[in-house]
């Protein structure tokens, strides 16, 4: 019986080679695998007549042969189908247009900044936009009527509540509840009472960075910002640093990057955290030091993508958004 089965397979293979029309594969299928009078079925029907000693393994063999035949038949019919469709395609015709979603360039910039500083061990958290005068100004060495407030025109809700003018409001908030070592970013929306023009809007984004531990130094701040500039603008990017004044950092600096077309462009303010700020955050300035920086994702997005008017970022024209 085994030889019969082997022969059957060989015959099938020979016959299928000769087939040219698709319909003939079906005829062949019926001839070999048909339920009632297929050749394989006929052999199967003889099994009960065999002596028990010869029965073992026959079932398995039949199943294997059936599978092989089915497989060959399938392949054959599939091949026929593909080669049968010979239609002309103009490959210079544009492909189908797929509508995809997109993320806003400010998101792209904030995510990129987060990723770069994540590499340096920074995480991030959010904070309130409606803020108390206390955290936005007073705890940062800017008591009421301090001249430094002139640089940050402020929207007030009432005499004690305002719209935060910078993400630095998070410095003392975070220090109050966390123990050093601290490495954290505060991205978020800020507000200034400025007349809207090509570089100012009443609300915009900032991202603040804060590091506090017992060993930080100014050269780390410069190195980290240089690392950031090179990752963000390209590895040949140069930065330069100059002295500045912020009431909540001492020493204070501003940083410029060299833009191939625009020359030196100021991108951020930074400095060593002022001892008063550490004290306000319930830390001992004799034990801990730190540094902080603040930069504008709007401005960075404009620089990186060549956008010349901040209003384009917030107008949400799809012809603009679809480019990102």
């Amino acid at each position, binding site marked *: 019986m085994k030889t019969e089965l082997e022969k059957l397979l060989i015959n099938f293979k020979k016959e299928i080679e000769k087939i040219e029309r698709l319909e003939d594969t079906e005829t062949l299928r019926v001839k070999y695998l048909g339920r009632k009078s297929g050749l394989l079925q006929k052999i199967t029907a003889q099994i009960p007549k065999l002596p028990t000693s010869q029965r073992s393994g026959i079932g398995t063999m039949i199943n294997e042969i059936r599978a092989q035949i089915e497989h060959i038949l399938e392949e054959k019919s599939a091949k026929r189908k593909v080669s049968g469709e010979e239609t002309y395609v103009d490959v210079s015709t544009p492909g189908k247009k797929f*509508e*995809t*979603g*997109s993320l*806003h360039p400010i*998101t792209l910039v904030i995510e990129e900044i987060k990723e770069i500083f994540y590499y340096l*061990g920074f*995480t*991030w*958290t959010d904070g*309130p*936009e*409606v803020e*108390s005068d206390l955290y936005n100004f007073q705890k940062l060495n800017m008591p009421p*009527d301090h*001249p430094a407030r002139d*640089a940050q025109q402020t*929207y*007030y809700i*009432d005499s004690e*509540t305002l*719209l935060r003018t910078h993400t630095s409001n998070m410095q003392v908030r975070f220090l109050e509840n*966390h123990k050093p*070592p601290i*490495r954290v970013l505060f991205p978020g*929306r800020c507000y200034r*009472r400025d*007349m*809207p023009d090509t570089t100012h809007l*009443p*609300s915009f984004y900032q991202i603040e960075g804060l590091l506090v*531990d017992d*060993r*930080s*130094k*100014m*050269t*780390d701040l*410069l*190195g*980290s910002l240089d*690392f950031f500039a090179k990752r963000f603008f390209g590895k040949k990017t140069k930065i*330069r*640093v*100059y*002295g*500045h*004044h912020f*009431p909540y950092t*001492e*020493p204070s600096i501003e940083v410029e990057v060299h833009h191939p077309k625009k020359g030196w462009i100021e991108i951020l303010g930074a400095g*060593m955290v002022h*001892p008063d700020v550490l004290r306000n955050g319930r830390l001992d300035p004799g034990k801990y*030091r730190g540094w902080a920086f603040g930069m504008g994702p709007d401005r960075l997005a404009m620089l990186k993508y060549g956008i010349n008017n901040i209003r384009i970022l*917030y107008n*949400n024209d*799809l*012809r603009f*958004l*679809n480019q990102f």
Partner: protein
Amino acid sequence: MRLPLSWLKEYVEIKEPPQKLADDLLFSGTKVESIEKANDDIVFDFEITPNRPDCLSVIGIAREVAAIYDRRLAIPSPFSETTPARRKKSVSFSVTETKLCPAYSVGVIDSVKIGPSPDWLASKLEKSGVRAIDNIVDVTNYVMLETGQPMHAFDYDKISGKMRLRSSRKGERVTTLDSAERILPAGAIIIEDDEKLIDLAGLMGGKNSEVDKTTTTLVLHVPLYDPLSIRRASQYLGLRTEASNRFEKKLDPAAHRYAFERAVQLISLTTGGKLSSPIKSVGYPPQQRSVLVPISLIRKTLGISINRTQIEDILGRLEFATTKQSEDKEDALKVTIPSFRTDINEPVDLTEEVGRIYGYNNFPKTLPEGSPSATDHPQSNSERELRQILSNLGLKEIYSNSLTSAKMLEDLSFPSQNMLKVSNRLVIDYEYLRPTLLVGLITAASLNLENFEKSSLFEIGRVFEKKENGDPLSSQSKKISAIFVNYNFSEAKGVVETTFKDLNIKEVKFKRAADQAPFGKTSATIFLGNRLLGIVGEIEKRILEKFDIPTPTYGFELDLEVLQAYAKAPYYEPTPKFPVVKENISMYLPKTIYFSDIANGIKAAAGKNFYSLELLEDDIIKGQRSILIDIKYYDPNHTLKKEEIAKIRGQVLEKLKKIGAQPRTSPNF
């Protein structure tokens, strides 16, 4: 502050080209905004930070230049004769509250001949952006620009009796030099004589004591005022002058004497005037201040290797005197602060001085040492995930302004009187804080109609509500919202459901929403257990009309914090080991029955054999709602037998009929 280079060169040697000088000043902290040519001269425009009023002067800038290049600063020597030459005149000047004017110099000058200033003086003023008026006003302005110390000259003959400096009472009036009558707040500093107010101190002189063509005798007053009083009065009156800009900062408490003597010297030169009273100087000289600085602190904070000699050299160039504390305190440096550096109070301030003159661009660059904080803040990571989900579904992210106008709110059916707003708006368009992200989304949707007939947009951000009581900071929750122009309800809801699925949030319930403008009738509130998560639905037509949107538009707004609280990481559920049985059931639904009733009924009836359910068709046939659903059954432990399947079907159909649906099934079912 504008300043001609030629004037600067009178006090310090400058060999560097203007741009190089500007860069070197910038690096050490004195920002040059612009460099302009003015005839034969070059004019620098400086941006001086409020902590450095000493740099609001030619001498202050020259001092910085001298420190940067390690050169000698040559300032004019003051008037040598401080006793009156001939006739004796006197002035009685008193201060009622020392705090208002803790130090000043005052004296009388006579034989003054008023006239135009000599060219050298007038031209320096004009290049500095100050109009030349007459030789007295010009000298006072000149000395202010030169030393940073403002002063005021009164006509001696217009003063009746004694001069008194006091705090103003609310509603007092004074006519200033610009002929404006000013109604004062309480707490401004004023000077009066026996009859009248004669000076709005620190801001502008009084008209009634003005120096004019006929003036021959002056009272010259060079004060140090309380900065806060000046600043408050200046802000209250909306009056800012070159003098108030200086007086509102912490000026050099010793400068008044030098400035007085310098002014007398120049008045004598330009008007022939002579000092005719003793110089009365109050609060002079001020007490010397010093700060003890550990050298190690400077090194550790800056991170540079700098030795004691270098530090002492830099501080010396800035006119700080240094002395070693004692042999056993090797590390400590006693630094005496020059009177003009009112900004220096503690060791870090001196650290900055060393750093900025050493040059930050000469620092090595290092990266932070030690290990970072270990805990992650998942909040913003899930924001990134949400953004990704929505953009994968074809939505475009927008960023809109969070301040808006009353009109915009009313167009969206929000009564503006209930909304949070700023108390000092600048522009009417930016007054109210948005109560919903739909403010920006609907504006953006409307804007894009011209170029795109279909659009789906989303935004993540804070929205605000007004709270009469309680913490005003607690009313600013974060939302995620979207708008779908020219879509249908199913598509909008599908985006919401897919979002939940991707965040592995289950057991979400949609309930028909009661009137919740701007959402219309076809809207559902979304619940997670008892927590309200948000709303999805149509935007009301009457609102769409206000934004010129002619096509059906849907939207949703979800609470980000609730979403974040319920989002889970995926956890693998085994795929069924045994065959899944599939069947389609069509049925008529009366209007009173919701799809959710059908779905819940089927789930309950199939029990543990329920696998999935999908709506294939939803039509109106002959006025009746007809739906076709696909149901899958399975058993986790074995292949379902025919009899078992029939039993489940029976239970499902029975349940459907009980609910009130009318299944249209073949008879053999």
